């Protein structure tokens, strides 16, 4: 078909493929386009590592909450209003002087969405997924995190049913801090285990 107007519109191939998927699913009544839009809105604007930072700060400030988080992370996290979409279970793993925890998904990219939002690109990269298990200490050094030799590194491989949240150690010099201020020290990477919580002087 010839047209007189210039062809200044087109879709890139990936957009066209996704629209084809959407069209088929909507035609069959299997998805509601409004529900799909709501999911996009949620992940673009509403969930993110700030949720996880609130969980960690509360655990630092409130020993009873920390105990609850240790024994039933799914419920403790849900009490703050953060629930997984498909009811996947959460486990909180606490860093200590002896043990540092690191989270990976070797299969694909299972990630604690409800508390951390979307995974960073590197979390989804093949080298991180394979090397986090084989050489966690080397991976951490690439993130600029050099742990003492006596600190053991425990690697947790996420699945579709079980997701992990690392609770980093509370930085020293934060006695008496309010939860909100504490949350400002909790980075996304510290909750994956590729970083530590910020020192108080780095927070402002």
């Amino acid at each position, binding site marked *: 078909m010839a047209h007189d107007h210039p062809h200044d519109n087109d879709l890139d191939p990936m957009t*066209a493929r*996704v629209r084809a998927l959407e069209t088929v699913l909507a035609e069959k009544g299997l998805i509601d386009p409004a*529900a799909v839009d709501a999911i996009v809105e949620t992940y673009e604007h509403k969930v993110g590592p700030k949720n996880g930072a609130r969980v960690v700060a509360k655990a630092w400030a409130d020993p009873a909450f920390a105990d609850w988080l240790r024994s039933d992370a799914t419920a403790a996290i849900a009490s703050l209003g953060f629930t997984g979409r498909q009811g996947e279970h959460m486990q909180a793993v606490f860093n200590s002087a002896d043990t540092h925890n690191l989270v990976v998904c070797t299969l*694909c990219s299972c990630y604690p969405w409800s508390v951390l939002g979307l995974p960073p690109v590197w979390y*989804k990269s093949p080298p991180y997924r394979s090397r986090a298990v084989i050489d966690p200490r080397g991976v951490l050094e690439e993130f600029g995190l050099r742990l003492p030799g006596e600190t053991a590194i425990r690697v947790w491989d996420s699945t579709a049913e079980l997701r992990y949240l690392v609770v980093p150690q509370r930085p020293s010099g934060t006695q008496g801090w309010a939860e909100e201020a504490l949350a400002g020290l909790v980075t996304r990477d510290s909750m994956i285990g590729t970083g530590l919580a910020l020192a108080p002087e780095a927070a402002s």
Partner: protein
Amino acid sequence: MSGEENSFAEPWQAQAFALALALQDKGLVSPGEWAAALGRERARVGVAADGSDYYHGVVAALEALLAEKGLADHARLAELAAAWHRAARATPHGAPILLENDPVGQHG
């Protein structure tokens, strides 16, 4: 907080991601099925070492699952993608691109 890299780079990535979640919300695909389908795509030779083609894998996993479940085969999806391309080219600049704008028509 270093959060800049964990949003979607392009709108189609957000749409594809949301479609995968919507199918799981509806119970049409279980979380385990989805992880396995995505894992297969991400384990293919030639995936980018930096993870930048992750959402290409999401789209391929969705296509494979729809085919597996008999909801749409690759030919049907390819035909619809071509229809979207034709619709886009036939849509005047500034107007929303709708599938109805495909001059070849017939998608009901």
